[in-house]
C-alpha cells in the first residue's frame, strides 16, 4: 500500500525473540495466494505462533494479548532472516504495523519492508533493551518515529536515537513513490548501457 510516511507516535507490540525468520512471519503454506491481499496475509501474520495446532488462539502470544497494541513492532536482533518472501512484509503491513524496530535486520526483508511502505528502524542494542524494558513497565508507553528528522524517541525515558535511511528512499516513503515509478523514467540510460555492455 502506497501510504505516505511522516511522523508516527504509537504504542508498541514487543517481540523480544532473536532471529525471527520469514517462515515464522508467514509460513510457506500461505504463499500460494496469487494476489496481493494484505488482509489475507495480515490475518496469517505469525500464524503458527498465534494459533495452537488445533486452531485455537495461543493466548500466550503477544498479538493475542490485549495489553499490547499499536503500529510499531519491536523485535529482537536479526529480524526477517531466511526466505526472501515479500509476503512477510505484506503480512506485517496487512496487520497494521507501519514501523518495525530492531537492532539488526536481514537484508532482503529490510528492502521488502521499505518497498511496502513499512519503515525498518535500526537502533542500538542498548536502545532496544531499554525499549523492551519500558514496554514491560508500561505497555501504554509510546515511541515517536520521525522520518523527516530520522529520529526515534522512547517517550517513557525521553531518550532519542538517529536512524539511517538513504535520501532517495526517504523521499519515496514521504511522497508515496516506488522504485518502478523511478526506473521507468530512466529507460534511456538502460538502453545506452546495453550498447556497450557484455552481451549474454
Amino acid at each position, binding site marked *: 500500500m502506497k501510504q505516505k510516511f511522516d511522523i508516527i507516535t504509537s504504542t508498541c507490540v514487543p517481540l523480544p525473540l532473536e532471529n525471527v525468520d520469514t517462515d515464522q512471519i508467514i509460513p510457506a503454506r500461505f504463499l500460494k495466494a496469487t494476489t496481493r491481499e494484505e488482509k489475507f496475509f495480515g490475518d496469517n501474520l505469525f500464524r503458527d505462533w498465534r494459533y495452537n495446532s488445533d486452531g485455537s488462539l495461543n493466548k500466550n502470544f503477544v498479538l493475542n494479548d490485549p495489553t499490547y497494541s499499536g503500529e510499531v513492532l519491536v523485535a529482537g536482533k536479526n529480524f526477517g532472516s531466511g526466505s526472501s518472501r515479500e509476503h512477510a512484509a505484506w503480512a506485517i503491513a496487512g496487520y497494521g504495523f507501519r514501523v518495525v524496530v530492531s537492532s539488526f535486520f*536481514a537484508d*532482503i526483508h529490510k528492502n521488502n519492508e521499505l518497498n*511496502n511502505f513499512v519503515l525498518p528502524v535500526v537502533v542500538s542494542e542498548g536502545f532496544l533493551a531499554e525499549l523492551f524494558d519500558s514496554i514491560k513497565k508500561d505497555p501504554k508507553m509510546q515511541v515517536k518515529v520521525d522520518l523527516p528528522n530520522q529520529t526515534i524517541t522512547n517517550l517513557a525515558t525521553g531518550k532519542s536515537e538517529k536512524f539511517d535511511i538513504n535520501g532517495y528512499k526517504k523521499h519515496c516513503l514521504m511522497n508515496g513513490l516506488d522504485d*518502478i515509478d523511478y526506473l521507468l523514467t530512466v529507460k534511456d540510460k*538502460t538502453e545506452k548501457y546495453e550498447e556497450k555492455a557484455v552481451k*549474454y
Partner: protein
Amino acid sequence: MNTLFDKIWDSHVVSIVEDGPTQLYIDRLYCHEVTSPQAFDGMRARGLKCFRPEKIFCMPDHNTPTHDQDKPIEDPVSKKQVDALSKNAAEFGLNHFGMMNEKNGIIHVVGPERGLSLPGMTIVCGDSHTSTHGAVGAVAFGIGTSEVEMVMASQCILQQKPKSMRINVNGTLKKGVTAKDIALYLMSQLSTSGATGYFVEYSGSAVKDLTMEGRLTLCNLSIEMGARGGFIAPDEKTFEYLKGREYAPKGEAWDKAVAYWKTLKSGDDAVFDKELNFKAEDIEPMVTYGTNPGMGCGISQNIPSIDTVDEAGKESYLKSLNYMGFKPGEKLLGKKVDYVFLGACTNGRIEDFRAFADLVKKSGKKKAEGVTAWLVPGSWLVDKQIREEGLDKELEAAGFAIRQPGCSACLAMNDDKIPAGKLSVSTSNRNFEGRQGPGARTVLASPLTAAAAAVTGVITDPRTLL
C-alpha cells in the same frame, strides 16, 4: 577494492541515484510460481510489457508434486499458482519450462545445468537461494516480489552495493566431509547474521578443490549466514562444466566468452571489507540441533549448554531446543530418525545422489525399518543421469525409491510434508520451525549423513560406514 565482486558489480552499474541506491543491470531473471504472480499483476496494473523478455526464464518448482506429474495437480490452490505462471509467461512472452518439460526442475538446479547461468552475469530471482548461481562466478542474489517487478519492467534493480567479504577455506577436507559440511560449519561459526550486508567470495584450496556440484551447494547456503550472495571465481573446472550446455555460448562465441571469463578474478591487491580464514581439517560432518541453520555442530559434539548463550539470546535458544525436543548439553548421535530427505536446491544434484548411493552400498545395509525416505532429484536432467548411471537400480535394491523433481519436502508447499513431531534428517537448507510442515523437526546434514541415518534409523556418523 579490485575484488571480483567490484568488477562484476561495477560493470553492471547503469547509473547511481543521487543520495540513493545503484541502478544495476540484470542479465538474467528467473521466476518461479510463488513469488511472481503479484509482480505480473503489478505489470498489468501499470499497463507494462517486459522490457527484455528474452532474459527471463520461468519454471514452477515449489508446488510441484514429486509423483504423477503427468496428471493434473490434486491440490487446487497449488494448481492455480502453477497455472498462473504458465499463463503469465505466455502473456508476457517469456521462456517457460512447465511441469513434465524435460528442462523443468528446481530453478537453482536448472539454471547452471542448462548453461543459463554464466560467469560474470548478474542474476536475480524472487528466492533467497539464488546465491546458488554464484558457483559459476556470477553475482546472484535473491530479491522480493516488488523487485521482481522492477526487473520485468526495466531489466534493472535499485540496490545499495553490499560490502565485500572473502572466506578462505584452506587445506584438505577429511573423509566423509562435504561442501554441505563446510557451509554448515561456516554458519555455526558466523551465525545466521554473520555475513549480513556482505557479498561473499569463497576461496582457498579446499574451495577450489570442490567439484561444481559442491560449489553450487556451498554458494546456495550463503544466505543462511545472512550474506546477500556468495560466489567462486570461475576457473577451468567452471568452463569444463559449462562447455556444451544448451544455453552456453558455442564455437567462436565460446572462445571469446572464456577469454573474458578468465579475467574474472580478484586482483592480488584486492582489499575486502572483511576477510576470514578457516582450516578444512577442522571440519567434521555437521548436523543442526536447533531451529536456524547457524545452530549446528560437529556430529560427535554435544549440543552447547545454556551458559554459552548470551543473555538476550537465552529465551530464543530455549524456545528452539524445546521445539526440537532436545536438551542443552546432550548428544545427537543415536537419536531416532523418522524421515530422511535427499534433495532441494542445496543437495539435489547428481553428485549428491552418487554420495548417498555410495554410502548405502558401502554400509551393506538396506533402508532401516520405520524410516520414510524421500529421494528427490533437483531436475529431470539429474533424474536422467541417475538412471543412466544405474543409481536408481542400486538404491531400489536397498529399499529406496526415486521421486520426481521439485522442491519437495524443503518447504512444505507440496504434498511432501513431514508430520508434526517427526524428526527428519534433511539435506535441504532450513530447519526453521514448521519449515518442513507444521510441527516438523528438522536436522540439516549432508547427503552422506542423511544416507547414514536412512540405513541405521538413527543419527549416525557417516564416517563409521564409509
